[in-house]
């Protein structure tokens, strides 16, 4: 629940897409429990008719009115909750996508909420047990990894069966989360400087290099780079940055390798970009139809990787 307004060049602020009423009731669906309860009530009705028992009609009346009230409370529990899409962070292909959702309670208590992504089958919902009035919380939906390119999630769903579990009330956002998914970094091919020992993705083995310093964790960044020892000492979430010495320049060129499969080719280039950045070099990228000049740093790496991510082979 760390909140931050810090602008990160790598993030995509989806708040620009948000609509004034970010959440609307989309669907009311009776649960299985409602069906079972209806069956029991039907049985009670048969008994009441058979025994001409007004007392049994009384049970019928009390239970069904309680059920009606629970439907109304279920609606009230979600009415006015706002779902606001948060930022997204680029990931490598195959890594889980993290979508931030900010949930604002609005004017009253909210109970037993679940947030999930209806587009993703079998995605686990994130529960929020209680949200006090005027409070908000930010949760992360973790989606399975996807292939490179620009990926989007157009709906997040807020649902609850509170209080009796008879009615599932669902809200959906109409906003869009957008990710740049880099190609999965891959070793191989022609290393620009010939030292192929450290070709694998820096992301995977980044903590083998020299410790460069800490920077604050941003939600959505890979958890494995968090300095957990620092967390255990009570410090905020910090990310470990690593770097290797060296100031050599290099060009990462599409034509260095001849690889039939475009995706593998892109992955190899991606691995080199990551390695070069990690080694602290100045590097540039030459792709068919696009050249990125020499540079280094997180922003420069992003520009290069984004170019690889969005690369489309001309037929």
């Amino acid at each position, binding site marked *: 629940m*760390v*909140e*931050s*307004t*810090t*602008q990160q060049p790598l993030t995509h602020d989806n*708040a620009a897409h948000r609509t004034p009423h970010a959440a609307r009731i989309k669907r009311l669906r009776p649960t299985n*429990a409602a069906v*079972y*309860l209806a069956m*029991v009530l039907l*049985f*009670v009705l*048969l*008994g*009441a*008719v*058979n*025994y*001409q*028992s*007004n*007392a*049994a*009609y*009384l*049970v*019928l*009346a*009390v*239970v*069904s*009115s*309680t059920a*009606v*009230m*629970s439907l*109304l*409370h279920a609606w*009230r529990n979600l*009415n006015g909750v706002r779902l*606001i899409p948060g930022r997204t962070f680029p990931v490598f292909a195959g890594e889980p996508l993290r979508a931030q959702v*900010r949930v604002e309670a609005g004017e*009253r208590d909210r*109970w*037993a909420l679940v947030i999930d992504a209806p587009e993703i089958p079998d995605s686990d919902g994130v529960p929020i*047990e*209680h949200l*006090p*009035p*005027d*409070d908000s919380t930010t949760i992360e939906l973790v989606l399975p990894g996807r292939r490179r390119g620009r990926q989007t999630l157009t709906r997040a769903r807020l649902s609850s*069966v*509170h*209080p*009796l*579990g008879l009615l599932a009330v669902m809200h959906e956002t109409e906003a869009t989360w957008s990710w740049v998914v880099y190609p999965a970094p891959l070793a191989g091919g022609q290393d620009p400087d010939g030292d192929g020992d450290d070709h694998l993705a820096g992301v995977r083995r980044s903590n083998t290099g020299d410790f460069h310093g800490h*920077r*604050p964790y941003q939600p959505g960044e890979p958890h494995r780079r968090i300095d957990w020892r620092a967390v255990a000492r009570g410090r*905020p979430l910090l990310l470990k940055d690593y770097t290797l010495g060296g100031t050599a320049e290099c060009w990462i060129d599409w034509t260095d390798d001849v690889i039939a499969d475009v995706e593998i080719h892109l992955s190899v280039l991606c691995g080199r970009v990551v390695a070069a950045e990690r080694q602290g070099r100045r590097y540039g990228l030459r792709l068919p139809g696009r050249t990125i000049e020499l540079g280094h740093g997180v922003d420069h790496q992003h520009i290069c990787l984004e170019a690889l991510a969005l690369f489309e082979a001309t037929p």
Partner: protein
Amino acid sequence: MSQSLITSEPHGFARVLWLLVAMTMATLPFLDILPPWLTLALIVLGTWRLVTEHRGLVVVPILPVRLLLVLIVALLLLATGNLGFGLTAATPLFVSLLWSKLLELKARRDFLVACLLCYFLVAVLLFDQQSLLTCLYAIATLGAITIALVSYHLDHGAGRSFRMGSRLLLQGLPLAAAIFVLFPRLQVNFPNLGGQAVSGFANSLTPGDVARMALSDAPVMRVEFPDGDMPTADQLYWRGLVLSQTDGATWTVAQETLAYESAPAPRNPEYRAIVQDISLQPQNQRWLFALEVAEQPPEKTRLGLNRTLYRRQAPVQVLRYSVTSRLGELPIDVDELGLQLPTQLDPRVASLAQEWRAGTNAPQVIAERGMAWFKANGFTYSLSPGTMDAGAAEFLFDKRTGFCAHYATAYALVLRVAGVPARVVVGFREGERNDVGDFLLVRYDHAHAWCEVRFADGWHRFDPTRGIPAAPGETAPATRRAGGADPLASADRSPSWMPAWLRGPYTRVNQWLAFVDAKWESNIMGLDSAKQGEWFGMAGFQRFGNWLLIGLLVGAVGTVVVAFVWWSRRRPTRRGVDPVAELYAQYCQRLARAGVVRHPSEGPRDFTARAAVALPALAEGIRAVGELYEQLRYGRPEAAADGLQRLRRAIRAVPRHVPVQPPVERSSAAGRPG
């Protein structure tokens, strides 16, 4: 052993506690029909589950073992005669099924099934009983079940579930009342599912029947006299069945009692006609009761030539009927069985008959002699005279003690042998006057049997039990009533441990309860389509029938929905708002006045950093507030013990009117803390 157990996910103490409360409340009313060993097993089971939930480790038997356990319980119930067909007879099995769910509370479905079974048990309870107290108890139980269901979907402690559940129940009550009043009362007769009505008189009488009924003080009828005065005690003979046929031990109703086509014209119009509004508990029998003798039968009821009232089918619910009797009138039917005798007869009976009819042929004289004979020969009244297999002769000549059924059957038999037509009548005698509601309450222990003897002008009532003294040590209800100055006064039914000064108020409270119950049963539980018609405009009702009710019902639900939505849209009350959030909002307002406005999506940490830069004079205070707020909001709960106080102090330390600074652009100050 280890293979027959599996570890189950704990459900959470609060949840299981609420479920147990609901289950216990649903089970309690059936405690008297559960065998003691089952009750003990349920207590053990409930305690075990609660303890294991408390420890957080639940080990339950695997499915085949659980099924085996339920099967064993079912067989035990069957073997001990606690299980039968029909809803109520199978209740012990339902109860065991419900409690066995404690062994398999694993998935959400198990919890739900347990709750639904509880609902079902409440309904089974109310199929039979409908007193006000039972209904209130049932509603409370429904509330407990609702709370248990709420707790299932909430991880937020027992208190919140209780508040939400009771709110659902209470807010639903107006709608429940509307549904109850408006729901069309269908009149369909299904095959009998086996309701458990208390057994009343069968079509036959053996003395043991009356003794069994006399042990219960449950109410059997409630009688109001709309025309005014209650008859005197010696007129209160509630005639039910007329038994003419005997085999010496048992007296039975003659088959095919002929009935009047229409109400007979009164032979003695000067006698007092009295209207009785009666509500009769179901007793698994077709006979209705009225003061002697009935003249105007209620609806759907036949009036026999012997002035008995009977229906085609035994009522399954409390039956309300209005009947007119003419006090002092005699039945004048010709009963062909009036002189029928059993095939075997003790010679002592014949000689007693000879003694009674010595020197006369007048039935009246013979009948009077018989009454006097009982009093002169040391007979006593006892509800537990022991078995009398030899029937009337054993009673008359050996035991000489018994209760009304013994006297009536023996008396009628001797009269028949003496050549005087006689028969046995069973019903109730007298009743308890309720001073609060001015009605008469007849209980099962008012059950009585007496005789009718044929004179030339008709059948005359003779009650041989009257004036018989109680046997030593007997506290028979009839004796107890007869002892007082007012035979219709409420009997003292207070428990024996009660101190004397409490007995008067106790009886008084009971009278009030009986009165409220009477009103409840006749007005609320007595609601039927006819009453619905009266309430909702007879004309419209007759024309549209139940569709009118359904329309009103839909309207009621719609009204509730609209009212609820309106109520929800109102501004919420500030009560119950998180105090931390409220304090922080005040603090943000102060800073806003100084020109540092918190952006809606700005986190407290960034806001603190920005404000500290924008208002350097207050930086220390601002950081203190920010740190405290963060701890309270996102920190561990134990850190927030006195945090609220500290936050309040820290916010007070920030001046209410901060010197206004030029507004600071958010973006210029935005940066990472640290």
